[in-house]
């Protein structure tokens, strides 16, 4: 097909539809799933049907996003509501991919737990849609609604296991605190709107620059409250308290999804907001700096004290949010590129880890302690290997994508003179060795407690495929990250403040260029 998508005019309905193609595909799929569900919702086969439809929809949406990306779709001028740039497409892939992997893992999980709720997939689609809107939002209003769409769906997903008191509690906690945080976010939006008379991100940036609002109190309070709202979604310390409990209580595939996609979406939106709207406002740098430090340190320290794998992973995901916040704090195009790459790596390793946990925990994965993995390497070498790769990648050992991701963030940090932040990051990483390595130790270096210790471990074909794909991805991107790095770089660069206005913004450090 030979169309020129580089000059989309979003005020024309046709162009708008093209620009929103992935979202529309996904919406259609969601409705389709609802229709399917409305009439088949009793047996595992029904579940599978809904799941495959979902997967097909995700694939189609991914294809749409790919097409837009491939054609370098672009809307010149100030986009009204939705951005048409590489950052959005790449983020879309990430969400769609995560959702797809989650669906694959969920099949077996839902059947095993007898959770014959095909609406699960519809909610997953809605949540993914919300994320895509967040990442593409060019207007705070879209962003807020996308966030709420995602949140509402994920609240339900967290509590989808109605037989589980823990799941109900997780949903309640997530919901109450989430709604509370939404209040702050909304207030922040209101104040920003009050200071700039607009909710369009680019226009906010323009207003800030032209009106010299860098020190406008209303804007700053609004900015602070926005950060609170996002801080909650990304589980930044001290807004993280919900995360361990909710991750712990939710069904494991949902936890994986929350720990990756939900967090990624919030980060993507945060990036857009800070990069496009508040690029010229210096105030947030220090705040995010401290949030990053606190998140890294607290997340890693508390993770040290965990005995069960699931909670450990929950705290670990908080720690990783801290690393991502470093990329945010850096705030340059390199930062967002590093962020994108890290998200990919982080998503792969976290999803795979949760998938493996789901496989291990036939009788309640909440109770799987690290010691329960003792001797796994003897009994199930491949599973142990996969989990070990995940752990090493989370730890950031070279040869895994986790390392390249961390490296990229460090590049971004050092290139902006944030040496101290980089140092804190690596020191926090050292702490993380204290809880990732024991998993490996248990699997490889401790004897099996009994013959039957790992008998119940089941990883179905689809789950195995997910894990294998993730691990392969981790290793591949650890050795050959070139293409992904390039994509991340060009996409990251697409999140920019309107070029004309950053007159008194600090000069951006020079970008690394190849030789």
């Amino acid at each position, binding site marked *: 097909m030979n169309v020129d998508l580089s000059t989309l005019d979003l005020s024309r309905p046709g162009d708008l539809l093209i620009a929103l193609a992935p979202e529309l595909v996904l919406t259609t799929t969601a409705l389709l799933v609802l229709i399917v569900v409305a009439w088949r919702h009793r047996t595992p086969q029904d579940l599978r049907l809904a799941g495959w439809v979902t997967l097909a929809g995700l694939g189609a949406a991914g294809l749409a996003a790919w097409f837009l990306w491939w054609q370098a779709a672009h809307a010149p001028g100030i986009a009204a509501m939705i951005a048409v740039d590489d950052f959005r497409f790449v983020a879309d892939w990430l969400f769609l991919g995560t959702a797809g992997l989650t669906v694959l893992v969920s099949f077996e999980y839902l059947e095993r737990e007898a959770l014959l709720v095909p609406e699960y997939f519809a909610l997953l689609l809605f949540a993914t849609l919300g994320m895509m809107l967040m990442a593409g939002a060019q207007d705070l*209003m879209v962003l*807020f*609604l996308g966030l*709420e769409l995602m949140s*509402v769906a994920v*609240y*339900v997903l967290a*509590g989808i296991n*109605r037989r589980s*008191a*823990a799941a*109900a*509690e*997780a*949903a*309640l*906690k997530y*919901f*109450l605190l989430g*709604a*509370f945080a*939404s*209040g*702050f976010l*909304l*207030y922040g*939006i*209101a*104040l920003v*709107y*009050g200071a700039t*008379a*607009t*909710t369009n991100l680019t226009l906010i940036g323009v207003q800030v620059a032209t009106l010299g609002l860098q020190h406008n109190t209303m804007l700053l309070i609004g900015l602070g409250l926005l950060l609170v709202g996002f801080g909650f979604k990304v589980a930044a310390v001290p807004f993280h308290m919900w995360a*361990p*409990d*909710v991750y*712990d*209580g939710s069904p494991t595939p949902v936890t994986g999804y929350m720990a990756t996609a939900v967090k990624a979406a919030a980060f993507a939106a945060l990036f857009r907001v800070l990069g496009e709207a508040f690029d010229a406002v210096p105030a947030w740098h220090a705040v995010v700096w401290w949030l990053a430090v606190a998140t890294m340190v607290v997340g890693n320290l508390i993770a040290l*004290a*965990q005995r069960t794998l699931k*909670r450990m992973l929950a705290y670990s995901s908080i720690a990783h949010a801290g690393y991502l916040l470093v990329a945010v704090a850096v705030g340059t195009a390199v930062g967002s590129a590093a962020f994108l790459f890290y998200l990919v790596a982080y998503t792969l390793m976290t999803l795979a880890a949760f998938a493996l946990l789901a496989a291990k925990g036939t009788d309640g994965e909440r109770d799987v302690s690290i010691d329960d993995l003792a001797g796994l390497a003897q009994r199930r070498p491949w599973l142990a290997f996969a989990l070990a790769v995940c752990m090493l990648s989370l730890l950031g050992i070279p040869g895994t994508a986790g390392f390249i991701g961390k490296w990229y963030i460090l590049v971004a940090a050092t290139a902006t003179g944030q040496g101290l932040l980089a140092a804190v990051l690596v020191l926090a990483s050292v702490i993380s060795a204290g809880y990732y390595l024991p998993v490996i130790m248990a699997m490889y270096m401790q004897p099996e407690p009994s013959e039957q210790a790992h008998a119940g471990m089941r990883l179905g074909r689809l789950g195995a495929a997910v894990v294998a794909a993730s691990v392969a991805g981790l290793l591949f991107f650890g050795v050959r990250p070139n293409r992904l790095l390039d994509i991340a770089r060009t996409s990251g660069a697409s999140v920019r403040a309107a070029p004309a206005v950053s007159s008194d913004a600090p000069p951006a450090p020079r970008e690394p260029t190849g030789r």
Partner: protein
Amino acid sequence: MLLGPALFVSAALFTLGVFGVLLRRNAIVIFMCVELMLNAVNLTFVALAQRLGVAGQLFVFFVMAVAAAEAAVGLAIILAIYRHRGTVNLQNINLLKG
């Protein structure tokens, strides 16, 4: 001319909402406090809209939709927890901790 007072009242209401969330343990009441916060923000929007254009009012419109959606899901969740625990007092809802 009502902007300043409205913003102040809004801030006060918002603070009261936060105060309520801090003060109460009943999940439903806390949720109501959150609604109070949202309404406080609505007041801000409306007050600003008077000076800045209709977008503020539209925002209120959307916030109402969000509030409705949250209410539906939130109350369903509260029902679910009540079914499990027989209470909505958050002090007793701490299975997950550590």
